């Protein structure tokens, strides 16, 4: 098992390097630092100002190799950027010159306040509903359920937010319409509506997906055996099928992991939750490439971490891997 995990870890490294390469190509080659400086400082900036900005941010180096006499060969944008990303030294934001790491540490908690409850409750709801649908499979109600799922996922997420804020918060006054406050139960008050909306947004997609997985699972031999030896159908579904289906579900769930930490872009921005998603939207709006770069890298890192976690889960769940 140990060698299996090491192998998986080694597999992640070239992928992470690939991600670093993609972000470098996008943010340093396609859009050279000079263009970034122009975008931030404006078209009217004097050349000296641009030079100073480039120097302050460490962008006044050659792209790949530093061949200037008297300077270190590897003192280039590429090598420096790689070093920075590996050591998690994200530097400062292009726009505000505040350290990016600070934005992250500030933003993680508000993001998790929104996404963690939404994820846990949403997952439990989706699994329960999809198992129930499998229980009554191919009935009229099941078909209607599938249709409803497709309908739910065909509505753009913004519409849920508009309607939720307008109707639930502003007209019925059940929730505050906007804002965030990190103070115990005060937080819950602000987060309740976004959490509800996030659950509804993903529910249709998840239920439909899980239903397919569980439907595949009930054609397996062990289900027939269990039914033949007289296990009630509900127990077969909610114990046997659920356990086995979980193995396939883990992979799907991990795909959500980056969003747990990155938060939901749309919801955070719309309801004024100062999380990472909001930070990303600000970065887009202000053309802050350093911030976007760091967030993209971080998102990939979370994804790969999730992938490793899946592998560990698999190793525990599946004796064939554990004993190999």
């Amino acid at each position, binding site marked *: 098992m140990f060698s299996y995990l090491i192998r998986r870890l080694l597999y992640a490294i070239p992928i992470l390097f690939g991600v670093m390469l993609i972000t470098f190509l996008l943010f340093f080659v*396609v859009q050279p630092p000079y263009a970034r400086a122009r975008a931030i400082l404006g078209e009217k900036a004097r050349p000296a100002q641009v030079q100073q900005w480039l120097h302050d941010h460490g962008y006044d180096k050659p792209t790949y190799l530093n061949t200037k006499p008297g300077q270190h060969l590897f003192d280039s944008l590429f090598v420096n950027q790689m070093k920075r990303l590996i050591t998690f030294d994200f530097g400062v934001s292009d726009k505000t010159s505040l350290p990016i790491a600070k934005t992250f540490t500030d933003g993680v908690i508000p993001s998790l306040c929104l996404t963690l409850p939404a994820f846990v409750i949403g997952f439990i709801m989706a699994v329960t509903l999809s198992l129930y649908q499998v229980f009554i499979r191919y009935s009229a109600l099941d078909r209607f359920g599938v249709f409803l799922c497709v309908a739910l996922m065909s509505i753009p997420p913004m519409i849920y937010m508009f309607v939720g804020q307008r109707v639930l918060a502003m007209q019925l006054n059940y929730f505050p319409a906007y804002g965030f406050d990190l103070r115990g139960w005060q937080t819950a008050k602000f987060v309740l509506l976004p959490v509800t909306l996030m659950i509804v947004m993903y529910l249709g997609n998840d239920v439909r997906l899980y239903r397919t997985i569980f439907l595949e699972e009930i054609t397996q031999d062990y289900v027939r055996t269990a039914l033949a030896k007289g296990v009630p159908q509900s127990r077969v579904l909610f114990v046997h099928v659920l356990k086995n289906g979980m193995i396939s579900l883990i992979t799907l769930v991990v795909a959500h992991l980056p969003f747990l930490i990155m938060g939901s872009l749309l919801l955070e921005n719309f309801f004024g939750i100062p999380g990472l998603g909001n930070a990303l939207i600000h970065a887009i709006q202000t053309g802050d*490439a350093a911030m976007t770069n760091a967030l993209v890298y971080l998102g990939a890192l979370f994804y790969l971490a999730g992938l490793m976690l899946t592998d560990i889960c698999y190793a525990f769940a599946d004796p064939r891997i554990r004993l190999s």
Partner: protein
Amino acid sequence: MIESLQHFFANWITQDVMVVAFFAAAIALLVRGSRNERWQRAWKFMKGDRLGLVAGVLIIGYLIIGGLDLLKISPTTSVFDWLANAVVGLQDEPTKASYSAPFATHTFSTAKPEPLQFPGRHFLGTTQIGKDTFIQALKGSSTALLLGGLTSLIYLPLGILLGISAGYYRGWVDDAIQYIYSTIMAIPDILFLIAFIMVFGKGVGTMSWALALTSWISLCRLLRGETMRLTERQFISAARALGQSHWNIITRHLLPNVMHLVLINFVLGFSGVVLTEAILSYLGVGTPIGTASWGQMIDGARGELSREPVVWWNVSAATVALFGLVLSLNLFADSLRRAFDPKRS
């Protein structure tokens, strides 16, 4: 050189030719597909699937409207505009650049309502610059069609080529292709799209490339798996034993047997493109401002919904139009999947 190429492609006549060619190619592909026995069986199955058929008809309706709006008769007007204005009699407000409510006779202003040129004619109201909302909502399908079409033109060949190669040749080819898509997959889709569009600049072209670069992966993985399964089958061994070239095996034996998966993926991918356009436009990295797209109309709702009294008709019209297309595409894809694989679903 590049500039003259750009001029060539920006020309409305070129656009018309390309739209016609695209539709012709799509129809030709379908006709070609209908000769396949598997497709014929699926079609027989689909005839009994009423929901799928309704969805299919709706999609064709959207395609026709979008296609007519992409066909220009002058640099600024399309066949659709001409039909709407001259034949049906739906017109934009030429002089009054302001909101007006559905069936209103005056502009939407509490202080000084002004009479409209076409009172009572705008049965879904007008937009901020006096355009008829109903026409704008219908014209949104042309942007959806353009984006979906361009994206598919890029990602379908890429996905098919790489997917089948990975599954057929295996070995280092497979490793390399797996590495490429694992890397792109590691970046969450929405982050990749945002970063890509931010760097290359907004526009329909950039957006299609960005969407294509994230969409080919699911198709590639699907085809890789299916090709691996198929190459175990005897008809491939037989073809090999008879000395058929790799090219022949891929194009004559593998491709026809995976085309239905491509079709399903294409339909689903289309719905993904339409939804993603709306989200990206809302985030400010979508279609350029001024495009008649559902994403832009929904994005406009941020200001419109906070007005008092609320301007609700633009966002509602765009949402209903978008919802209709995405729902039909999803239902149609489900129906296709059932038809091609009746045992499994």
